[in-house]
């Protein structure tokens, strides 16, 4: 029996903070509080431990070790106290998966209409995975994918199914 195209594993222990603000006004303050550069549109910046993803022209998602979340929220709130901004802890609202393996991109390509060849190394793509919203970006050896907590089982099902051994997308 051939191997699965990639291993699909649920990842715990990540905190996530939604930041909505005028990025041109508050970018520097956010960058300082988050400890990461503000990513360009459709990109994600990372220092290995924390990542800061561009979600929309006025929305960022800070992803960090869960235990750092309360302090990061406090730092952001303080940094943006004088600005019109919204900071929300969404750590529990998400499900995170890692899709790792030589053919991880085949797994994503079966579920999302996103153009993977055009996804840069630091690209973050918001799209859908089968019938539910998802965002994904590249990590060592594959992809990290986030979706909504309530659809975690569904996501697991469709990801595992797309990784079916022997079903690689290379022409046969």
């Amino acid at each position, binding site marked *: 029996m051939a191997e699965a195209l990639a291993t699909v594993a649920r990842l715990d222990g990540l905190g996530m903070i939604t930041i909505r603000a005028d990025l041109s006004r508050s970018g520097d303050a956010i960058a300082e509080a988050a400890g990461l550069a503000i990513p360009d*549109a*459709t990109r994600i910046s990372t220092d290995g431990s924390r990542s800061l993803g561009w*979600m*929309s*022209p006025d*929305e960022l998602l800070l992803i960090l070790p869960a235990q750092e979340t309360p302090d990061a929220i406090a730092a952001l709130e303080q940094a943006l106290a004088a600005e019109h901004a919204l900071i929300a802890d969404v750590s529990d609202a998400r499900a995170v998966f890692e899709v790792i393996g030589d053919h991880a991109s085949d797994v994503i390509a079966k579920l999302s*209409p996103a*153009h993977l060849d055009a996804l840069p190394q630091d690209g973050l*793509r*918001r*799209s*859908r995975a089968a019938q539910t*919203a998802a965002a994904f970006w590249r990590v060592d050896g594959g992809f990290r994918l986030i979706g909504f907590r309530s659809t975690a089982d569904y996501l697991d099902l469709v990801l595992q199914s797309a990784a079916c051994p022997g079903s690689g997308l290379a022409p046969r």
Partner: protein
Amino acid sequence: MLILTCPYCGLDAEETELHPGGEAHLKRVGPEGSDEEFEDYMFARKNAKGVHFERWRHAYGCGKWFLAARDTVTLQVYGTYRAQTHAPPQDIVDAIRKVRPDWQPDWSHAE
């Protein structure tokens, strides 16, 4: 399957990543409006054969609404632009005119 460029993300999104929102550039009629004005705003929609302006939301993406100038006959997309405007920007008008020189803008609602 329409493919439209989200002006916020710069991504070519396919129709399944988008949510349609009907005719663009409607001007809201509030409590002061007459019955006729309200009826026009609420119910009278264009059904253009040719140039048409539509609202789309990048629902499975950045979540932003944008507008598209599209030809309902040829399916040509003249351009997409951000929703925060009462009328299409000049470059969109130019793109339409390039293909349909006779086309007349209809900004009865525009300010």
